[in-house]
């Protein structure tokens, strides 16, 4: 048995690994933001929130581009046929198709969270409705990130030939 990964060029391997690392970084960063938004916000907390939300945003952007290049250049021609002809073709038809589209929600959601945190700053504490809504936006991103990671795991497993 060999993994498809060993037939990839060095650049594609790095891009795939980068996609995973940056995606996880994004999800973890917004999990940290969510945990802090569930507590009272002061000047010190807002500095941390600014840092993690911006980290999360750039994490998702870099994950989007690195994964996107790998997907467009390599996945369609080399990985997808292996999965579709294997024991679990639904892993492409359902999991990969879902993942590649809901992932695109993340950069836009992340930008909203960053904008809210940077524009409101510690005034977020004075508007609990907005603070809770921003926390929920972060929760949605963490959920999509976690689901995407699990789907990615299944896709990688199905690509073993």
């Amino acid at each position, binding site marked *: 048995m060999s993994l498809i990964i060993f037939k990839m060029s060095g650049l594609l391997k790095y891009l795939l690994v980068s996609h995973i690392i940056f995606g996880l970084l994004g999800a973890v960063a917004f999990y940290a933001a969510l945990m802090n938004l569930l507590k009272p916000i002061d000047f010190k907390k807002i500095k941390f929130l600014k840092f993690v939300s911006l980290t999360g945003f750039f994490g998702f952007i870099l994950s989007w581009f690195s994964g*996107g290049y790998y997907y467009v250049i390599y996945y369609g021609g080399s990985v997808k046929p292996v999965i579709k002809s294997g024991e679990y073709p639904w892993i492409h038809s359902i999991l990969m198709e879902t993942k590649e589209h809901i992932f695109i929600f993340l950069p836009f959601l992340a930008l909203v969270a960053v*904008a809210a945190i940077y524009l409101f700053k510690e005034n977020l504490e004075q508007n609990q409705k907005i603070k809770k809504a921003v926390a929920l936006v972060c929760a949605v991103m963490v959920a999509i990130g976690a689901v995407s990671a699990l789907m990615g795991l299944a896709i990688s497993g199905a690509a073993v030939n």
Partner: protein
Amino acid sequence: MNNIKLRILNSIIIGAIAAIIFITVITVVADLYLSLKDWLKNIFYHHWVGKGILAAIIFFISGILNFISNKNADEEKIAKNLNILIWASIIGSLMISIFFILEALR
């Protein structure tokens, strides 16, 4: 918080809602009407690249149009729009996954 900042934030939220709805709709429609998928591929090299680029364009256009047309934004409106964004993301994610499950079962 001053009105300009509220308007900027509101416009970013509106842009994100528009982008997410667009991604959901075009994902379903392009898979049902392959001529649309082919068009995306011809213009953007790959259908998925096209969806991302068009979503970004729609985000910017919707956001800018909202900023120009909505001279007043208040915190109530922002809270409401954030909730719409949250629901759009959840429903969009569910619609996309259910669509591909149904397509796989066909």
